[in-house]
């Protein structure tokens, strides 16, 4: 036991000297700390976009809900379902019913132009035509302000995300759709889900406005239970009258956000790695400076009999401690600056705007701090080895 104890005592002693000399190197230490903090803040910030999008998609999905599209369509934009298709879907086994009516909502999905508040540029905003069962299928739908539109009238309700991101979507405003005026009569939320980026109208008035006849693009249906999905799906895919595909809502949204999520995560990781390399050099510089400024002290300790191992570990400890400080500052900065920040971006699957809130989750903060520690370890390793390998006799003469 004496050996390891002795070794730990040496590490502790040298680490304490190192830390006590930090005030003498406050400039380079702060540079390293804030360099690493910047890297972590950017990394967490960018990844919180992907996290926020994923979370928006997760919140949109209900385990009992399914989406039915035309077979081969990857999104509602590319899908078309005729009135008969809708009827056959509604009659499929497993669809929940209320007072004898199927909880299946055929929906129309078109894109309109609105001006983004931040940039002043035009952006695609989804306009969704719904039918009365939609209010039972999309259980999170809730009017926040104003009222629900009247069925059969040219009125719209606006998702809270869309109102925040685009101009002219306040209650009382009037938007022009298909050369007709549509007053905004209410604002709704959907538990932070994707629907909050949309504008909803009565499908029955949207169909003639866009000359869609009795066609829709999707059917959202509520099943009796999540377990009913397979039977429902099998019934649809084996029905020769139908050419459709059925997906759980969660799978559909995951697929919809997949491209964007992968793009942002890859980009965020790439940025973090590039910036991280810069921070590693910053840490290297700081620790080389630290080792150089204490060359004689380190050599003296080794001359007195302290081993090289504890010298390496103690220098690494200092580097990791600086990185930890930087990591925590960066993580807190990211959390303070980004968490809950609302934004909109293009959903590559639907070519429409998706509003979401940056989500700086605990896991993301931990990842950011772990990344900082890796920077600290890599940045401290070579200076630590240098400290341990310096010829004692030469280093003792350093001024």
């Amino acid at each position, binding site marked *: 036991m004496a050996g390891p*104890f*002795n070794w730990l*005592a*040496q590490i502790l002693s040298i680490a304490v000297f190192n830390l006590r*000399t930090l005030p003498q190197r406050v400039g380079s230490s702060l540079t390293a700390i804030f360099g690493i903090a910047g890297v972590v803040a950017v990394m967490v910030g960018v990844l919180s976009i992907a996290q926020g999008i994923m979370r928006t998609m997760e919140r949109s999905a209900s385990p009992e809900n399914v989406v039915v599209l035309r077979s081969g369509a990857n999104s509602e934009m590319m899908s078309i379902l005729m009135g008969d298709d809708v009827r056959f879907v509604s009659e499929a086994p497993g669809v929940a019913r209320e007072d004898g009516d199927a909880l299946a909502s055929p929906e129309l999905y078109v894109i309109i132009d609105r001006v983004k508040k931040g940039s002043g540029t035009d952006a695609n905003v989804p306009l969704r035509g719904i039918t009365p069962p939609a209010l039972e299928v999309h259980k999170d739908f809730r009017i926040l302000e104003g009222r629900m539109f009247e069925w059969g009238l040219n009125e719209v309700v606006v998702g809270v995300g869309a109102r925040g991101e685009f101009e002219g979507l306040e209650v009382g405003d009037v938007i022009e759709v298909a050369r007709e005026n549509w007053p905004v009569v209410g604002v709704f939320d959907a538990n932070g889900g994707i629907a909050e980026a949309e504008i909803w109208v009565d499908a029955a008035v949207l169909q003639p406005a866009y000359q869609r006849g009795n066609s829709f693009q999707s059917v959202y249906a509520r099943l009796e239970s999540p377990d009913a999905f397979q039977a429902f799906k099998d019934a649809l895919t084996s029905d020769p009258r139908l050419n459709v595909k059925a997906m759980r809502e969660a799978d559909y949204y995951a697929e919809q956000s997949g491209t964007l999520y992968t793009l942002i995560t890859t980009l965020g990781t790439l940025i973090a790695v590039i910036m991280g390399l810069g921070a590693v050099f910053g840490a290297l510089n700081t620790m080389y400076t630290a080792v150089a400024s204490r060359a004689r002290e380190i050599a003296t300790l080794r001359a007195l*009999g302290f081993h090289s191992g504890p010298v390496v570990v103690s220098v690494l400890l200092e580097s990791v401690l600086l990185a930890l400080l930087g990591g925590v500052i960066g993580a807190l900065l990211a959390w303070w600056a980004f968490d809950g920040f609302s934004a909109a971006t293009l959903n590559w699957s639907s070519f429409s705007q998706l509003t979401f809130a940056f989500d700086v989750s605990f896991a993301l903060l931990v990842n950011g701090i772990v990344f900082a520690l890796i920077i600290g370890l890599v940045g401290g390793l070579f200076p630590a080895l240098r400290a341990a390998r310096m010829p004692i*006799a030469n280093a*003792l003469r350093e001024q």
Partner: protein
Amino acid sequence: MNETVEDGAVSGLVAVRGVDKVFKRGSEEIHVLGGLDLDIPEGEFLALMGPSGSGKSTLLNLIGGLDRPSQGTIEVADERIDNLSNRKLAAWRARHIGLVFQFYNLMPVLSARRNVELPLLLTHLSRSERRKRAEIALDIVGLSHRMSHFPRTLSGGEQQRVGIARAIVTDPTLLLCDEPTGDLDRTSSGEILDLLQALNREQGKTIVMVTHDMHAAERASRTLFLDKGRLSLEPSV
């Protein structure tokens, strides 16, 4: 001419045999010591003199296990140190060597007592025992009233006393002093040399001191001169 035979000293605490030391600077080889033999009996106070670059400090570093010879053997207290691993050599230094440096080499962030305690961190002594021994060592060098002072608040002479206290606190086999008065005024130098002499005479410490100062060398029981890598009893003309 090497010292061992001519001086008639018997083999003792330190035995240096056929030691060469070659430094490399790029492709150039600098021979600092060549075939050097030296014996230092226990209890001796040996002064090593010589011009700059003569290899005095190199020899001291070799005896103290801070460097390794290019060739030859070095034994201290019947233990060959030139072939020890780095780890064993570090442990050996902690056990057997007390070092006194020209520029004191104290840790500026530690008090005098903490500086003296440093080598004891490598032992298994309890905290209170370490503290007690450090206080005794500081008392021996006459600094018991300055224990909690930091190096920057001490004079050069006082800092060197702390350095000596640190060197003797582990009761080492050998005390190696590299220009211990080189950075001090005459009065402080005298005090430090008094102290080293007292440690040698009253406590039987074996001391090897490198110095440029003839007055300092006069305090030693024997003086050897090193020039061009060779030892002699007289300075070269």
